[in-house]
């Protein structure tokens, strides 16, 4: 009897783990990934989705099984078993969530570090750019970059130097300025494979820069410059969405990021540059 119970529990647990792993790895809930960060994010998502499925399915099966197995037969007015607790069992189900969240926490910290989230922004080269960009950015009062994601992610397979772009958000548009080429654009154009660093500031209220296909978002805050770095990996056009309520036309505050192959990007620069000889 004891052995049979143990076997049943073990089989159920194995089935649950396999179900969770299968669901996490095969059910796609995300849009296509178009930045080096997306692959990292998607691996975290798979782990969380797998663990979440295991826990949810396991708990729901336990609940439904109990409701069926221990249902009150009609006419039965007696009580159930007078079990008030079981310390070893309670220690087990304190330990399980503790271990799970510890694992998830450490794993997501690692992911965050690979994304460049732990880079101390104030020591970063971002400083030089924002100093250079002051007239356009109107950020003279803030020599300090407030927050964001730096460009030193370990996964970033960037070639060449970092491409700085200044982003100004206002009700209800994004404006992109390329300080090196002196181009101003309503759309963000970037080359694939090169690290891009956005220096962002808002004119009026808080906005947020979000590209779902990049899995990245950063608030754009009036009075406090923020930085967001990414390396696009897949040519194409992706939506830029404002994610922070910014007024009546918040839902319409959208733009596009166009990821070019490096040659096409050079051509775009040539075409739009006010000085025709300028190249990066």
């Amino acid at each position, binding site marked *: 009897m004891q052995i049979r119970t143990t076997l049943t529990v073990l089989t159920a647990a194995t089935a649950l783990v396999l179900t969770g792993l299968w669901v996490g790895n095969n059910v796609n*809930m995300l*849009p296509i990934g178009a930045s080096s960060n997306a692959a990292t*994010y998607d691996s*975290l*998502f798979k782990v969380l989705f797998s663990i*979440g499925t295991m*826990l*949810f399915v396991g*708990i729901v099966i*336990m*609940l439904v099984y*109990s409701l069926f197995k*221990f*249902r*009150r*037969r009609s006419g*039965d007015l007696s*009580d*159930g*078993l*007078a*079990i*008030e*607790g*079981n310390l070893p069992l*309670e220690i087990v189900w*304190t330990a*399980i*969530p503790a271990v*799970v*969240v*510890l694992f*998830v*926490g450490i794993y*997501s*910290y690692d992911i*965050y570090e690979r994304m460049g*989230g*732990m880079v101390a922004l104030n020591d970063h080269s971002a400083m030089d750019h924002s100093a250079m960009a002051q007239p356009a950015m109107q950020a003279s009062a803030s020599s300090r970059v*407030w927050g964001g*994601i730096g460009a030193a992610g370990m996964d970033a397979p960037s070639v060449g130097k970092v491409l700085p772009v200044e982003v100004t958000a206002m009700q209800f548009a994004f404006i992109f300025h390329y300080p090196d080429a002196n181009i101003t654009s309503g759309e963000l154009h970037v080359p694939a494979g090169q690290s891009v660093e956005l220096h962002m500031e808002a004119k*009026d*209220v*808080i906005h*947020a820069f*979000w590209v*779902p296909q990049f*899995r990245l*978002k950063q608030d754009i*805050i*009036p*009075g406090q410059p923020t930085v967001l770095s990414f390396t696009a990996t897949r040519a194409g056009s992706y*939506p830029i969405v404002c*994610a*922070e*309520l910014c*007024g*009546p036309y*918040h*839902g319409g505050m959208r733009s596009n990021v166009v990821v070019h192959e490096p040659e096409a990007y050079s051509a775009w620069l040539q075409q739009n540059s006010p000085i025709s000889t300028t190249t990066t």
Partner: protein
Amino acid sequence: MTLANPSDFNGSLQPQGWLKYFSFSLDHKVIGLQYLVCGFIFYLIGGALAGVIRTELASPISDFVSRETYNEVLTLHGTVMIFLWIVPVVNGGFGNYLIPFYVGARDMAFPRLNAVAFWLIPPAGILLISSYFIAGAAAQSGWTAYPPLSLTTPAAGQVVWILSVLLLGGSSIFGGINFIATVLKLRRPGLKLMQLPMYCWAMLGTSILVVLSTPVLAGTLILLSFDIIAHTGFFNPALGGNVVVYQHLFWFYSHPAVYIMVLPAFGLVSEILPVHARKPLFGYTTMVYSIMAIVFLGLIVWAHHMFTSGTPPWMRLFFTIATSFIAVPTGIKFFNWLATLWGGKIALNSAMLFSCAFIVNFVFGGITGVALAQVPFDIHVHDTYFVVGHFHYIVYGGTVFVIFGSLYHWYPKFTGRMLNEDLGRLHFLLTFIGFNLCFAPQHWLGLNGMPRRVAEYDPAFTTLNQISSVGALLMAISTLPLLINVVLTAINGKVSGDNPWNALTPEWLTSSPPPVENWLGEAPLVTEPYGYGQKQEVTP
């Protein structure tokens, strides 16, 4: 104990019969029902506002109401549902009705303060709703009222919103002080803290959060009103103010507010499950420690709402870890509830259906919550429909399901009549299906690029938004069987007797509905409120 005796106050001046529900009654049972009915009216108003939102979102273009109106509606929806429905009902409503019974008292510690706390709510609610009509424009900056947006939208509506939330916060603080005093100081002689029903612990923990964090919200909103009215610069970047400081102060209250909404629900479920499963509550002591752990952790996780706001890396790391660890005490509670059901004699009536669905919904919302606590995960889905789905699984799938379950469980106590079970099951089915249709697809929408608080969206998201709107329609319809049930039962419902569930908690050891003094004689000493399956002697 004289303070706790309502007969000292309820002289012949107090109206009797149905009129007492419209009076400044000091009876905790009357006040509890006042909270419940008043809250339910605001639930219908908040639900109508949600109907406007889901109608607008049934098509990808902004075509149902103007964009300004849409932002007013979403602001009012959030504010009404949080401050006028869930917080008052689950704390003030059930708390006022049950806590004096549970501690063996004849009333709350401060009956007059109790009545004041309730009577702040209707004027505050009317003020809030009327701002839509009289102030020209209601607040449009969301229930979070982030500056600088809240400084630039029409000022009159925003100021009325602040005033209303301040009144409701004041009401909440009065209630919190009253619950702490009642649980700690009005216990019947001989009744120990560790013998109290679990809902007392939940309300004690909740009230500690209310008293510690609500004043911070009040202070923040007063500063915000200075910025609007007197053009000070606390949160105005043009005058050197700092907008992120507002977010810290706001979430220092508004994250604990989640626990102010769910901890009482945890307590109510802990009362319902043992009764209908005929089993003791599993692991009483660990349940108590879990509540207190949630209270402590709940106070140090607020910045997880600000992972994209420009918080420094170390801060993101700390708040990720602290938030993740809330899963541990919460997990203990859910496993203990499952263990409570295990080996029981479960009657799957309406009260149990809603309570068990609460477990399913809340586990789902809890799992997405742990995912959201992870900074890299959150950076993608923050401020999207994923978050909207997540918190509705917590506050609707969690707390509102428990409110309905509690209504079926305690309605015989309130009125002496049983709610109809068939209508109850219909109500449950419509609510459960409608709720999941409405909010499950929103997770996918958020992951794939739909931000929250928008009146228009990418046409690629149309189908799932329409499914969500159908779910909302079902949820609207689900209130009909409930309303019909309550009205029919009041007219000719089955008489329940004093203790239809054969429950052991003290509120059932008196007549239903109870006399003004709660017990005709002395309050019974119940030291084992969950002593099912064993011989239980109730000392009179």
